[in-house]
């Protein structure tokens, strides 16, 4: 059975993430330990609350370095919600700019929609070639967020492959998921998305 670490770097509901990954068929440890997070077959980076607070918590346990080291070795990482947002270049909340892990270019900013937070079950626009959404392309997933990546111009050349980006619309278009080699992320909560979420986690565990 594959071993997954759910990275513990602050408060919030981590129990659901742990149980959902267990149910999807992996052995799960909830820890903020550097070596454990580095050695696991898969690392799940959750995250709720403010961008700045999440980045501070992540840096405190050197989580940003764990992510970087794992990716250098091609070892899978899955970011969820703010755990996805911190993978981008930076976040802007209430006028405060915070540097992220900078694994991807792009800025996390407030959604420009009539009703914010974007809360509830929404559809996603899945690109061809997806692994994460295999068999669940038409399902709805549970979102709860006020910020997102609203613009991402993908640049490719002969040497690199562009990330597969899934978009969603909450009255404002934003990045709902990214598949980029060993680095994947979802803005929605697979651990709260019922059977569809469980299928997505199984798809991810299948890549480990």
């Amino acid at each position: 059975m594959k071993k997954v670490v759910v990275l513990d770097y602050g408060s919030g509901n981590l129990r659901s993430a742990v149980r959902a990954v267990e149910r999807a068929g992996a052995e799960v440890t909830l820890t903020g330990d550097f070596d454990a997070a580095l050695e696991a077959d898969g690392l799940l980076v959750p995250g709720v609350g403010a961008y700045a607070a999440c980045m501070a918590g992540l840096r405190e346990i050197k989580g940003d370095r764990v992510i970087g080291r794992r990716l250098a070795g091609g070892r899978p990482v899955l970011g969820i919600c703010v755990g996805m947002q911190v993978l981008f270049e930076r976040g802007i909340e209430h006028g405060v700019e915070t540097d992220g892990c900078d694994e991807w270019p792009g800025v996390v900013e407030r959604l420009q929609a009539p009703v914010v937070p974007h809360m509830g079950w929404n559809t996603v626009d899945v690109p061809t070639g997806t692994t994460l959404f295999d068999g669940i392309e038409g399902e709805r997933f549970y979102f709860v967020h006020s910020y997102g990546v609203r613009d991402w111009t993908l640049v490719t050349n002969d040497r690199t492959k562009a990330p597969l980006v899934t978009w969603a619309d909450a009255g404002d278009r934003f990045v709902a998921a990214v598949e980029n080699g060993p680095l994947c992320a979802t803005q929605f909560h697979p651990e709260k998305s019922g059977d569809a979420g469980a299928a997505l986690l199984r798809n991810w565990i299948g890549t480990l």
Partner: protein
Amino acid sequence: MGVAVRVIPCLDVHGGRVVKGINFLDLRDAGDPVELARTYDAEGADELTFLDISASHEERATTMEMVSRCAEEVFIPLTVGGGVSSTADVDRLLRAGADKVAVNTAAIRRPELVAEIADRFGNQVLVLSVDARRAPEEAATDSGWEVTTHGGRQSAGLDAIAWAKQACDLGAGEILLNAMDADGTTDGFDLDLIAAVRHEVTVPVIASGGAGAVDHFPPAVDAGADAVLAATVFHFGTLRIGEVKDGLRAAGHPVR
């Protein structure tokens, strides 16, 4: 398409047990919140709300265990409310497995609590529960709506619409709007109240109170509700989650 209208059953719990009568389906233990949560999940509930009506610390500790067991078995969002009065209470509930926490009376007494919770945990965890009704003539408010406490028995001396707006400015991420005039009538949601709140806030609004038939739900969404919550009609099997969703879908509203 867009985000689906959420249909949310609400369970009153006391000392970790569901207290309102449940008499539908073949539940082995109708008072077990976990079994009931599982049943509602299977029926298509988009979220579950637990309202803890316990009075003592011991009973609340039992509720905490109940939340944990639910979070381990049911993979849809869980909101827990009832007696939440500090950031420590919120932290305990989130750690137990709640995704969102509803505050009501404690926020009326001390509005700063809303900002404290939002600053620490983010506004997405914070549901402001407002028990509102038409203000009586002798205690008129600007909007015509007032906030009540003690299950609608007492006036809080606050304008309900102004309070909802203030709480959102302080950081509430969602409004659970309980229409006290409609509550228990099964005559339909209080559409005027929903529209009045929708007009003033930009966070999601959950309409509650008055649901008695499938065709009561679409007008609540037309009035501005993002989600609909009901207790009795679901617990007694008067309505099934699927029927409510079919009704919403037929009226042109997206559902899961």
